[in-house]
C-alpha cells in the first residue's frame, strides 16, 4: 500500500538523516523533492503546496535539538503534518436511529456495491442487523450482484427487480426493515458523474426521503487530480459524512487519500483492501502516516492477528516485536496464523521494512518460500528456535536434510530473520526517541 510514495519519501529522508544541521539551502532541496514525490502520487497540487509550506515553516523555524539529528526532526514534522492532513483520529460510523440509514454514492466502478457488502458484514459482526437495499436501477445486473453478495454473506437484500423508481424502492425497503426488525439500511446507489445533474438530483431526493445518518462517498484510491473535484461536488450536493477509499491493495500512490480531508474536511472512514468481504478496515490516520513513511504498522497487524488469535497472545507478540525479542518460534507461529489471516502480502507489508522486502519478491514465490520456511523451522529443536545463534554447521546440515532444503537456503532464512529483528529493534529505539522529544507518535 502506498509503496511508491513511501519509497520516494524514504529516499528524501535518507539524505535528510545524514544532515548535521538544517540550513535553508539543504532543507529547500529536500522539500522540493518531497513536493515532486507528492505530485507524482496524485496529491492535489494545491494541497501539496500548502503541505510543503507548512513543513518548511516549521523545519526552519524550529530550534535544532542537540540530542538528535536534525534530519530526524524534519521527518517528525512531516509525519505530524501527514497525520494532520489525513485527519487526526479514526472516525467511526454514527448510526443511532432505529432504523438507521447509510447511503453509498460515487462514480461508476468505484466499488460501491462491493463496499456495501463489506460494510454489511462489518455491521453484522458488530451485532447490528443490516439490510442491503439495491438502488442501482441503471447498470445491467447490478441488483443481481448485490443479491449474490447478500447470499454469500447470509444477509438479507431488498431487491425490486424491474422497478425503476428509486424512491419507491427506498420507501418499501424502510417498511420491510421495520417489519423484519432490521436496524441498519445500507443503500447501494448507481454510479454517476458528479456533474450529472439529473442523476445527482435523484440522490438528493433519496436523501431527503430516507434521511441517512451516514452518506459515504466511495472513491477509488487510484483516482487522480480529479478526486478533489469529485469529492467537492458530491459534498456540496449531498453533504457527505465520510469517504470509503477502495482498492488500497493496489500500488496506487494514495494521493487521493492525502488530499480528501484537506479539501472537503470530511474524514476517510474506511479503506477497502481486497476483493473478499472481510477486506475492509477502519481508517487510522496515524497508522497510515507511519505506513506512508515506511515505519510499518504493527498496531494494525496485531489487531488483525487478534481476530484470529486471542488477545493476550496478540499483546505478547506486540511486546516482543517492540523489544526485538521476536524468536523463530514466534515467527513460526506467525507463519501459521498468516495462513488463517489470508493475504500474505498485506501482512508482511505491515512489518517495518516489510514493504521493501515485498517489492523485491514475487508474491507466489514467497508464498512457496514461506511454506519452506515453515518446514525449516519445524526441523529445528525448540532450543534452536529460541537461540538461533547456537546453530553451527552440523546443526544446519541436519536441519537442511530434515526439511529437504540446501544449507544455503537455511542460511538465507536465518539472515533474513536477523534483518527483521534488527529492523524491529531500530523501530523500538526510534519510537523511544520520539517519545523523549514529547511528540505524539503512534504506538507500534
Amino acid at each position, binding site marked *: 500500500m502506498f509503496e511508491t510514495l513511501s519509497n520516494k519519501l524514504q529516499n528524501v529522508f535518507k539524505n535528510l538523516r545524514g544532515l548535521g544541521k538544517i540550513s535553508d539551502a539543504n532543507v529547500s532541496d529536500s522539500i522540493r523533492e518531497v513536493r515532486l514525490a507528492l505530485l507524482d502520487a496524485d496529491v492535489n497540487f494545491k494541497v501539496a503546496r500548502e503541505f510543503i509550506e507548512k513543513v518548511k515553516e516549521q523545519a526552519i523555524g524550529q530550534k535544532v535539538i542537540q540530542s538528535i539529528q536534525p534530519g530526524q526532526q524534519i521527518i517528525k514534522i512531516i509525519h505530524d503534518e501527514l497525520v494532520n492532513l489525513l485527519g487526526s483520529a479514526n472516525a467511526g460510523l454514527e448510526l443511532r436511529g432505529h432504523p438507521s440509514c447509510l447511503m453509498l454514492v460515487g*462514480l*461508476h466502478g468505484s466499488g460501491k456495491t462491493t463496499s456495501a457488502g463489506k460494510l454489511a458484514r462489518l455491521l453484522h459482526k458488530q451485532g447490528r442487523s443490516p439490510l442491503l437495499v439495491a438502488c442501482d436501477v441503471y447498470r445491467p445486473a*447490478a441488483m*443481481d450482484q448485490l443479491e449474490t*453478495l447478500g447470499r454469500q454473506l447470509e444477509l438479507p437484500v431488498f431487491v425490486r427487480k424491474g422497478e425503476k423508481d428509486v424512491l419507491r424502492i427506498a420507501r418499501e425497503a424502510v417498511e420491510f426493515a421495520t417489519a423484519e426488525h432490521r436496524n441498519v439500511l445500507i443503500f447501494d446507489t448507481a454510479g454517476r458523474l458528479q456533474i450529472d445533474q439529473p442523476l445527482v438530483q435523484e440522490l438528493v431526493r433519496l436523501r431527503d426521503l430516507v434521511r441517512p445518518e451516514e452518506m459515504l462517498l466511495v472513491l*477509488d484510491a487510484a483516482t487522480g487530480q*480529479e*478526486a478533489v473535484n469529485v469529492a467537492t461536488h458530491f459534498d456540496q450536493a449531498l453533504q457527505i459524512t465520510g469517504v470509503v477509499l477502495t482498492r488500497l491493495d493496489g500500488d*496506487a500512490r494514495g494521493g487521493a487519500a492525502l488530499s480528501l480531508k484537506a479539501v472537503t474536511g470530511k474524514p476517510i472512514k474506511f479503506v477497502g483492501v481486497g476483493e473478499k468481504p472481510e477486506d475492509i478496515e477502519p481508517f487510522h490516520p496515524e497508522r497510515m502516516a507511519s505506513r506512508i513513511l515506511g515505519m510499518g504498522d504493527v498496531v494494525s497487524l496485531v489487531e488483525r492477528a487478534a481476530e484470529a488469535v486471542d488477545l493476550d497472545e496478540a499483546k505478547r507478540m506486540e511486546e516482543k516485536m517492540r523489544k526485538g525479542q521476536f524468536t523463530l518460534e514466534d515467527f513460526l507461529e506467525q507463519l501459521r496464523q498468516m495462513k488463517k489471516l489470508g493475504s500474505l502480502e498485506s501482512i508482511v507489508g505491515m512489518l517495518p521494512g516489510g514493504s521493501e522486502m515485498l517489492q523485491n519478491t514475487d508474491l507466489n514465490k514467497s508464498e512457496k518460500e514461506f511454506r519452506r520456511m515453515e518446514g525449516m523451522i519445524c526441523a529445528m529443536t525448540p532450543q534452536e528456535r529460541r537461540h538461533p545463534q547456537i546453530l553451527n554447521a552440523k546443526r544446519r546440515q541436519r536441519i537442511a536434510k530434515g526439511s529437504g532444503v540446501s544449507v544455503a537456503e537455511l542460511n538465507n532464512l536465518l539472515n533474513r530473520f536477523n534483518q527483521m529483528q534488527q529492523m524491529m529493534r531500530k523501530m523500538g529505539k526510534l519510537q523511544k526517541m520520539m517519545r523523549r522529544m514529547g511528540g505524539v507518535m503512534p504506538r507500534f
Partner: protein
Amino acid sequence: MGFFDRLKSGLQKTHDKLVHEIKRIVSRSPKLTATSLEELEAALIAADFGLSMTGEIIVAVRKAYESQGGAGLDVIEIATQEVTRSLASTASALHKEASGLTVVSVVGVNGTGKTTTAAKLAHLVQLRGETAMLAACDTFRAAAIEQLKLWGQRLRVPVIAGTYGADPSAVAHDAMTAAGSRQMNYLFVDTAGRLHTKHNLMQELQKLHRVLGKKLPRAPHETLLVLDATTGMNALNQAREFNKAVPLSGLVITKLDGTSKGGMVVAIHRELRLPIKFIGVGEQPEDLQPFEPRDFAAALFSDRELNPV
C-alpha cells in the same frame, strides 16, 4: 452527433479548464517568468499530465519563448504540438484477421468498464455488418455474467458463459469452439477485473491467453487494456504491469465524459508507445468511439474547436 462533436463534448470540461488556465496565465503575465512557468506546470499537473510530460511541455514552451523572444508566443499552440507529436504513432483500427476468427481480449483493473466496453465493441463490429460473440470469462465477481448476458440480449449478441467459480480459461476455450463453429468474425473475451499487483491473478490471465493461443494460433489478436479516465498516474503502473504479463496491443480509455481528465493518456502513450484505440464517452452502446489523436489533441487545447457547442 458526429464523432468529433461527441469527443468534443466529452472533453469539453478538460479543455475549458485547461485553456482557461493557460490563457489566464499567459494573458496575465506575458513574460515567461519562474512564476508563470510554475503556474503552467500546476495547470498541466491538475489535468493529470504527469510530471515528465509536464516537464517536456514546459521545456518546449521555454525553448519557443527563447527562440521567438516572447513575441507571438502561443502556449496553447506549443502544447498542442507537443501532445499531437506524442500521440502521432497511434493507429486506432481494430485488428481483423484476413480469414477466420479474430479474438479480442479485454483486460484491466476492477471497475474500469471492461464488461461495458466488451459489449460496446461487439455493437461496433455489428454495425459494420460483421458478426460478434461475447465470452463471459469473469467468473469471479458477483453478477458479472448476468451483466454481460443482459448486454447480449440488448444488442442481440450471443454470449458464452460458464458458472461462477469456473476456470475462466475453460470458458474461453468453449467460447472459441462456439465462435469457430458458428463462423463468427469476432470473439470478445470479457475478463475479470484484477489489480495489476496481484501475481496470482496476473498468472491466471496469462493462462487464459495461453489457452486462447493454443486453440487458435496468434490468438488473442488484440489485447485491449481498459483504463478509467479518472485514474491518475497509477494508470501508468497499470499499463506497465499488464503489458508485462500479457503483451497489450492497445488501450481503451473509458469514462471520458464530462470529467476534466485525459492527460494521463498522453503520459501513458509517451512511455509505452501503445496505441489508444477507443475512447468511451458515455453509457450508451454507441458511445465507444475510435480514437483520433489529432482530434484529441485539438479538443484538449485548440481554441477554435473549443467554443461552446
